[in-house]
């Protein structure tokens, strides 16, 4: 946790400094007052300074016993879920919302839980139909259809 806190503080400082360097290219002050660079520049300075303060606080705080890391399978599920979400977003334009949504839910439910395959397929199918009913037909959202056309 301590190492993560130190990394978080350093990343914040770097992000703040990156914002400052980019904002410095915009006009800071204009004849009538602050220019377009004023707010982002000060936002960057604030992030960088707060990051440094956080780093000092973490380094000065007493070391506490390390928390046990989450079980391997569980922490892995986070990245599986995130990767599948990215794949689903990519797939929506190719195979359409309905097919992507069904496949995404079926795979993720199948991986994360120990349900019977009929439950997995059934839930994925019903949820997809409900989403279509609410968003496509109810709210008239033109959801991507892809090559399948649904």
């Amino acid at each position, binding site marked *: 946790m301590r190492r993560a806190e130190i990394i978080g503080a350093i990343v914040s400082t770097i992000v703040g400094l990156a914002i400052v360097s980019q904002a410095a290219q915009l006009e800071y002050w204009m004849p009538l007052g602050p220019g377009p660079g004023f707010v982002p520049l000060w936002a960057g300075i604030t992030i960088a300074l*707060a990051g440094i303060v956080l780093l000092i606080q973490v380094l000065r705080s007493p070391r506490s016993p390390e928390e046990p890391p989450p079980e391997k399978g569980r922490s892995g*599920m986070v990245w599986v879920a995130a990767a599948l979400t990215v794949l689903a977003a990519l797939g*929506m334009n190719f195979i359409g919302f309905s097919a992507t949504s069904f496949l995404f839910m079926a795979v993720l439910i199948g991986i994360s839980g120990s349900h019977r395959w009929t439950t997995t397929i059934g839930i994925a199918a019903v949820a997809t139909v409900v989403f279509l009913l609410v968003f496509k037909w109810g709210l008239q959202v033109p959801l991507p259809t892809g090559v399948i056309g649904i």
Partner: protein
Amino acid sequence: MDFFSSLFSNLGMGFGVALSPMNLLFCGLGVTLGTLLGALPGIGAVTGVAILLPLTFGMDPTTAIIMLAGIYYGVMYGATISSILLNTPGDAAVVISAIEGYPMAKAGRAGAAFSMNAIASFIGGTFGAVMLNIGAPVVAMAALKFGPPEYFSLMIMAMLSLAGLAGDAPAKGIIMGALGVFLATIGVDVVHGALRFTYGSIAMMNGIDFLPVAIGVFGVGEVLVQFETLREQNALNVNLKLRELLPTSADWVRSRFAILRGSIIGFVIGVLPGAGATLASFLSYATESKLTCHKDELGKGAIEGLAGPEAANNAAAAGSLVPMMTLGVPGSGTTAVLLGAFMMYGIQPGPLLFQNQPKLAWGVIASMYIGNVMLVVLNTVFIPAFVRVMKVPTTLLLPIILVLSVVGAYSLQNSMVDVWIMIAAGIGGYFIKKYKYPAATLILGLVLGPLAEVNFVRSLSISHGELSIFFTRPISMILLAVGVLSIFAPSLKSAAMKCWDRAVEKLARPDSCA
């Protein structure tokens, strides 16, 4: 007298709006969805409002806000169900309810705990609605005197207060708030028309909307955290017959003043920016633990320790709407998302809301009375149904919430750009939550950033570039001073809690229990 006659006539108009069939339907839908989401462990009010906001697209703004407000206070009721049966709160605001609620359920008194939750929440929520009713127009009238410097200082105060009170270190809150302000500057500059940080991308010219970020951080981020902590939920099996849902007369006697005190504490704390329902419920529990005549039962199922905090968190939910509706400044994550919803519909909350949109403002307030009546019925008569829903495995729900987040972000502008922003915010949200950076401050910065910038530039054009304008106007100076003091909130909060404990201990005379 004039004040009260106009108050009642406005409230009458509000009830006229809230009682229309469509608004009644969506108020009912909002409170039911809120109770359902609240009953699911980990899905709190802010996640519920963020992921369900896209369902209101295309609705009349009044109906949409009535439904979203219904989800907000519905979660407060429903979240206690999982606290009582699972010992796992459905929202941070009901963490304290598990301390007394879970032992009550283990002792076979889940029915009494559920009904006391519903009744205390109803009284707290209705008290909050009454105070919102009376207080909102007064604050709105006072705020009409605010100029750009006061508004700028108010927004800075709101962000600093939330940064100071949320998360485990004020520096983390400041980082999140400033990051939100920076993200809001991406796209076309609203003051000068210049392009900022678009790097030639047409998609980025529209800027980063708050909603994909809110859905990502609160929806996807929360789901990813839940995937990491997946475990079997062992809910207590309870037999809920109607007769067992009624609290005994002894329960009533023990809880009546706790509910009253919780309602007052909750509303006052709810109005303060950054404090919110969680602090209100903790303060109420601290008070009841000092005042109770049954100290030996604390932690083992003392019903007053459940009733007080429940009244407090519901009154706080109503209280937090006062600064949002009257000043346009939210004090919590959920009200920040609600403010974003108002702005999405082209409505600017603030002192002029009650003049420009009286039907919406009073309709929402009136709907809170109706919603609380619906919720007390839902959380007593239909409680067995919600208990069954709570037992649905998380592994079935999380993928559905992810798809809802994706389709919700897409439907904002029918664009995949928002989906990618949402996914990026979701992965960022996972780290934000895991390492306890306050996500609410990020959203507040994103929502208030453009308004703060406009008011800052206007103030400096009034003062011909002199920054002293913020320190020479008394209201502005006080607001900034409160904001700066809030940075020291963790130490101030513990000092205030100690003072409160001492004051309550003095009030708790041993002879009063005889």
